[in-house]
């Protein structure tokens, strides 16, 4: 294996994920559900649009989860499957999906950690299946990415970094 493999994310994947997260938010009364990939990229946001910078948030989430993964190993656990950060009003619950992406749930005093944990289990199970299907789809759509795209991207690089 040379570098990390690329993966692609299709319209139908997005629809399935949005469907699962929307159902989960309804049942748990949480505000926002996000999917962040382990390299720090935001994949999906469902529910209340967050007011913060989602790009920065995603990179910090991935770093947080990765650091905790290593801490888990140090104490003899294979992983921490989920993390919980409690705030005075806003809290976050993070759960691993298929070892490749992270589900982030933002919730406030309108619900409880217990209800979020109860409802998230089913959502995690369904999301695991969606992502396992996606990662099994070898070379999905990205091979031979448009030559025209690459030409124009190079021009933009010259303009921006010129």
């Amino acid at each position, binding site marked *: 294996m040379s570098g990390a493999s*690329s*993966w692609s994310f299709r319209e139908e*994947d997005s629809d399935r994920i949005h469907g699962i997260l929307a159902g989960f938010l309804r049942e748990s009364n949480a505000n926002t559900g996000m999917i962040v990939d382990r390299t720090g990229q935001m994949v999906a946001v469902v529910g209340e649009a967050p007011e913060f910078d989602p790009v920065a948030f995603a990179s910090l989430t991935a770093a947080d989860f*990765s650091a905790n993964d290593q801490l888990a190993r140090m104490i003899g656990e294979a992983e921490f499957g989920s993390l919980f950060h409690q705030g005075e009003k806003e809290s976050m619950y993070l759960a691993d999906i298929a070892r490749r992406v992270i589900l982030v749930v933002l919730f406030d005093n309108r619900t409880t950690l217990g209800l979020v944990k109860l409802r998230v289990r089913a959502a995690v199970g369904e999301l695991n299946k969606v992502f396992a299907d996606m990662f099994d789809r070898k070379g999905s*759509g990205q091979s*031979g990415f*448009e030559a025209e795209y*690459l030409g124009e991207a190079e021009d933009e690089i010259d303009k921006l*970094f010129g």
Partner: protein
Amino acid sequence: MSMINYASREINCKLVYYGPGLGGKTTNLEFVYNKVAPGSRGKLISLATETERTLFFDFLPVDLGTIRGFKTRFHLYTVPGQVYYNASRKLILKGVDGVVFVADSQVERMEANIESMQNLYDNMAQHGYNLTNIPFIIQYNKRDLPNAAPIGDLQSALNPGWEVGDPARQKLTPDPYHEGEYLVVQQDGQWFERATYFEAVAMNGEGVFDTLRAVSKLVLKTLGS
């Protein structure tokens, strides 16, 4: 691991600046942050100690704009250079699409450079990646200092080249950035390839965008392969 999101029509690529402590990795990102138009970049996030030494990473997203309908973005990361932060350093390499090694040209930092380069190869290998097969650029920083080692010495120590096994790549390949120099050469019947290098003075921006432009283009080429 560049991610092509066909649903939101986004392409995100991850570039990591690696190298010994105090070599200028964060300075590279700060210069990019200050020079790129605010509309084309996000916030610069630094997880640093009180003395401004990188503790976990710096992060800067740069938007290339929408190309053929795809919003294209580069995520620039630095790693903490200090030796004892290796656990965090390894985490940042996860999913990397392109690496810039920022070497400190000062003679006194040669050992630190070599140690960091070895550490980079080791950490990449532990993720299952092969540095010789992904976009990789070396930047020799601090070229303005009087104690800067000659480029030839730095190249021999940090960029001696690796064997090229793929017959398709076994051909004399000129270095597009240095006239009269080659990236792939044959020596004693064996083919060797070196990483592209740039000289820089990151403090005043010299070489910073040359480096970023080169690694970005290499990364985009990998999308098409």
